[in-house]
């Protein structure tokens, strides 16, 4: 990706809101999507991510605010006149047409000579690894193959922006990984801007150049995947990104230190602490904690061994639960009593009331 290309914003969202009756699905979303970027809209169900995607596609209009695509305001421009193409969650393959007719559907308007039309369709089919499938009836395909047809159908249109609406959510786990790699490869090959809606943070982390985390119709944070992971703005983003999720322990500011009753310790954190006595929460990722066999604060309730890595599920004397990652040779067993050693530099501190990050 060249630097000049990445500088140009292709889609600008400015204060976009959408209300359905008294329900506010989006409450003022502003963002810039740059050309060639793989941009992911991530959030739990009901956060407004699909609503936003449908407004970019032209199936819906913002209640207030504007969407600008390639310098042109999109208000009043219907989906069939926008340089975007969508890959639907349900694939939306036309069941009465062949695979080739599905892929060539969007080409019919161009009135290409037959040879050229056939060539473009076959080329798109090859790109999605379905070369030679053209004459097959679309309804005979498996879920993964339908997904490929849906992507091929968008490819022939050569859209400026590809829109994906939770494209992998209807596939089984194995196919999902396969298609994820495939979509990443396509993005490299085509280089077009892609907007990808998902509730699965693993998909967003592995695919996206940039992630927007949405909750309740509001942007919680925008950034590169690892930036969100390392430097979350608030407790929601910190907890949503990463698997297993970040551990949160309640703490309080005392004598210029952060007192964590759950760990029976006080920590000196390199942040600007709020006033004495403020209730805070300390966030610790499973890989930033180490078990201390000499300690007695926690009991191991369960261990989950995945081979290269194990996760120990701990319960403290205060009742708070913690997940710890173990990678060393000697690992803990269920029923062990242990203590915890934390890496203060990688701990994140949040205000308990507002849930915003304290830096």
């Amino acid at each position, binding site marked *: 990706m060249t630097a000049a290309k990445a500088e140009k914003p292709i889609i600008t969202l400015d204060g976009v809101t959408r209300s359905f009756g008294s329900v506010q699905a989006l409450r003022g979303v502003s963002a810039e999507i740059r050309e060639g970027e793989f941009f992911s809209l991530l959030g739990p169900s009901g956060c407004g991510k699909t609503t936003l995607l449908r407004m970019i*596609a*032209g*199936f819906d209009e913002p209640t207030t605010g504007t969407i600008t695509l390639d310098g042109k305001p999109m208000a009043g421009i*219907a*989906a*069939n*006149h926008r340089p*975007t*193409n*969508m890959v*639907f*969650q*349900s694939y*939306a393959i*036309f*069941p*009465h047409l062949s695979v080739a007719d599905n892929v060539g*559907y*969007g080409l*019919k*308007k161009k009135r290409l000579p037959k040879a050229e039309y056939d060539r473009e369709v076959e080329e798109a089919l090859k790109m999605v690894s379905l070369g030679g499938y053209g004459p097959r*009836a679309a*309804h*005979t395909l498996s879920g993964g193959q339908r997904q490929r047809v*849906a992507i091929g*159908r968008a490819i022939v*249109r050569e859209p400026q922006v590809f829109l994906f609406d939770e494209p992998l959510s209807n596939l089984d786990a194995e196919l999902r990984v396969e298609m994820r790699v495939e979509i990443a490869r396509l993005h490299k090959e085509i280089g077009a801007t892609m907007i990808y809606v998902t509730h699965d943070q693993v998909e967003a982390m592995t695919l996206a150049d940039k992630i927007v985390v949405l909750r309740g119709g509001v942007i919680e944070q925008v950034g590169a995947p690892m930036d969100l992971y390392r430097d979350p703005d608030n407790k929601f983003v910190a907890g949503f990104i990463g698997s297993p999720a970040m551990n949160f322990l309640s703490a309080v500011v005392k004598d210029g230190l952060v007192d964590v009753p759950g760990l029976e310790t006080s920590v000196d954190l390199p942040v600007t602490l709020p006033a004495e006595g403020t209730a805070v929460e300390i966030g610790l990722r499973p890989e930033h904690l180490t078990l201390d066999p000499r300690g007695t604060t926690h009991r191991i309730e369960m261990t989950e061994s995945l081979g290269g890595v194990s996760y120990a599920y701990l319960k403290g004397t205060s009742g708070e639960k913690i997940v710890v990652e173990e990678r060393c040779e000697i690992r803990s067993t269920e029923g062990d009593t242990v203590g915890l050693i934390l890496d203060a530099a990688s701990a994140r501190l949040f205000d308990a009331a507002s849930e915003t990050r304290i830096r």
Partner: protein
Amino acid sequence: MAKGPKKLDWLRGYASIYMVFLYAPVILLPIFAFNNSTVIAFPLKGFTTEWFSSLMDNSALHDALGNSMIVAVSTAMISTLLGAFAARAGVRYRFPAKRGIMGLILLPLVLPEIIIAVSLLVLLMRLGMSLSLWTVIAGHVLVCVPFSIAVLNSAFAGLDQSLEEASFDLGETSWGTFKRVTFPLILPGVISSLLITFTISLDEFIIAFFLTGTDVTLPVYIWSQLRFPAKLPGVMALGTLLLLLSITLLIVAEFFRRRSAQRRGLDASTTEGLI
């Protein structure tokens, strides 16, 4: 379990009686249509095709048949078109008083036909309109639209909305989307609706009897013939032909329905159909 065989016998008996009750009158039609006697009674006298050939040169019958075809074809097309609009609106959109409106549209299903016929006649008289085939068509459309909506409702409900959105997204216009996606996918429902409304209109008597002018439809013609016992075997022959026509229509409809279900990847035997 011990009761099994006995229970089965009982059910078999019930089913047999039921079938006889249903189909005995229908089977009598062709039998008497070929019987060489003007009296409709056993024992049969002899074989003849005289009644069929008499149909060939009965111009009043031909006129009535022509009228019925005009009425039934017009009714089928108009009510299917109106039914498609209503079914789509009912399935796809939300609007105020939707349940009430849809309920009122479906009301003629349960309203006694004689009431509809009489009130339509009174209304038309008040408006000073003369009775013609068009008034019959109007009456038939009124009773056929609910059937059409019922059939097309399931066709539209089974249509994934994102298919139309996908077509639109791929650069097609609303009309193009209808032509290339919506219509092919609801076609089986449209054919069912056309056949059902055509059949209902073709054999409808009460409304046609009240609203017809000088041009009578086939059922009204048949009813008028019943007053003359000598004409009865001719009616039997006519009934036989109509029976054959209905069976052929149903077979054709089912054939198309299964083929279209197959093309859409559905199991034809498990999907709802005419048969």
